[in-house]
């Protein structure tokens, strides 16, 4: 059970495929327009239930509960070794290969 007042993220459908704008590319036309927003949970609830939250500006939004204390997990990704090769190219061009060892 996730307690009322918890900081959560919800997800909801804003427009179903048939409600979407005309002239969309095929891949976009066949999927709904989705929204994610964070807020404080207004009632105790379980994950994936439909809930209401109060957002930071005090708005009420309703949607599926998808995360408790949503966190930032973005990183610098996997190392790209080609970046070292760029260093080698620019340094050897500028300073000569003997200065790049």
């Amino acid at each position, binding site marked *: 059970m996730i307690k009322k007042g918890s900081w959560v993220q919800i997800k909801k459908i804003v427009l179903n495929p048939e*409600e979407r704008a005309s002239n969309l590319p095929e891949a*976009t036309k066949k999927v709904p327009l989705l929204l*994610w927003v*964070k807020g404080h949970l207004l009632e105790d609830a379980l994950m994936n239930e439909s809930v209401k939250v109060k957002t930071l500006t005090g*708005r009420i939004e309703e949607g599926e509960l998808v995360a408790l204390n949503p966190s930032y997990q973005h*990183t610098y*990704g996997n190392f790209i070794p080609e970046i070292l090769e760029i260093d080698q190219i620019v340094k050897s*061009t500028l300073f000569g290969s003997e200065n790049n060892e």
Partner: protein
Amino acid sequence: MNNSYESVMARKNQIMQKSVGINYENFEDGNLSFDYEGLLSEGNFTLEDIIKIQNDNGVGNTPLKECKNITNLARKVSKKGYGARIFIKDEALNDSGSFKARRASISCYQAKKMGFKGVIAATSGNYGAAVASQAAKYGLKCIIVQECYDSLGVGQPEIIEKARACEAYGAEVVQLSVGPELFYKFLLLLEETGYFNASLYTPYGIMGIESLGKEVIEDCLKLTGKIPDMVVCTNAGGGNLTGTARGIQKTTDKKVEIVGASVNLKGLHMADDNDFNKKSFTTGHTGFGLPFIMNPDRSDVPRSAARALRYIDRYVTVTQGEVFFITEALSVLEGIERGPAGNTSLAAAFSLAQELKEDQIIVVQETEYTSAGKHHQAQLSFARDNGICIYFGDPSEEIPGKSIVFPKTVDLIKAEEIDLNIIRKKYLQNQFNKVDKLKKTDLKFLAEEINSSIDFVITESKKYKIELEDEE
């Protein structure tokens, strides 16, 4: 109230008008024309007022830095005597980490002055953090609406970082999946909250950048005793270039060549759910740059104040591989680690500098902050995970959405020219599709819009059988 897509879109002008406090109809004066300078006088701000507001709020007075090693690198592959001095305006040092703080500062100042309780901006770019940061200073509530994920909920690392930054400054972030209907949710939010529309395209969003143009000239004079020969602006919605050029024109009578630069994303559809995560640049690219320069009023206000075609002297594109390459070069040759998108114009400048002589000066007028997600390392990793082939070769082989090609030698970095006369003709075509008659005031307006002659406009209008109205 009916909140269906069609109903909300039908009342967009009314929502817009209320949310920016500008009656755009007051500026309409022809069949197509409107009083552009009148619109840009909205709020009666002088450039000195703008600078004062910005300096009081952590914006402006960023350093202009000479990139001596990058300049020398360009000279290694230039003809003898060629290779202009390359300078960058380190706009990453504004509060919130980009030149967008300049635009946000005036919007938030105006919102506060007009008594709005909060501000809303629709942006997946650095502008979100800029508005959130400035709103924090004024005690305004803030909502940023982002196009962030594909329909599977997979997000661009760059945009996810920008969402984090907005939240760091206390904003509510509303994230959406791919699609132009973001505008629909944006309108609903404006209606629901009664907040100010801190659009990038209001006069405030443009006049805020004029200070950047002024600083570029003054800093350059201070450092070199000369004004720059060329200023390169990354071009997307057109505001950066428009505001910078206007600021330059207000500061010097001498001609400074204004060059727009965009990342070439040819072939990728901006509203396509599949293409969304195949691009490595979410701003500063041709997917915004071209449609906006040819049709500036496609923005989120009735009349956009960002009108790049009025000011641009040359428009070039660079590839994703070239921009990542120069971003890494900036880091290891100059010791300045910055975000890739802000280096679009640096990649272009590296190529353009080779056309200018050694004693000439080229200024790249922005940088942006970098962080997890918003870093070439993160974006290249994301690209590789999405099946994009990354290799060394000739960047002109790059196919957006399929490959990212790093130049295998530095001489292969080549800005590609876009023929501005083709852009001018397409701009006019878009305008002529709206009317069948032109007044004299329209001819004058259109000539100003495309920075060309009335004769050019008349010649084009004949192709579309547009009638010229006789006026007494």
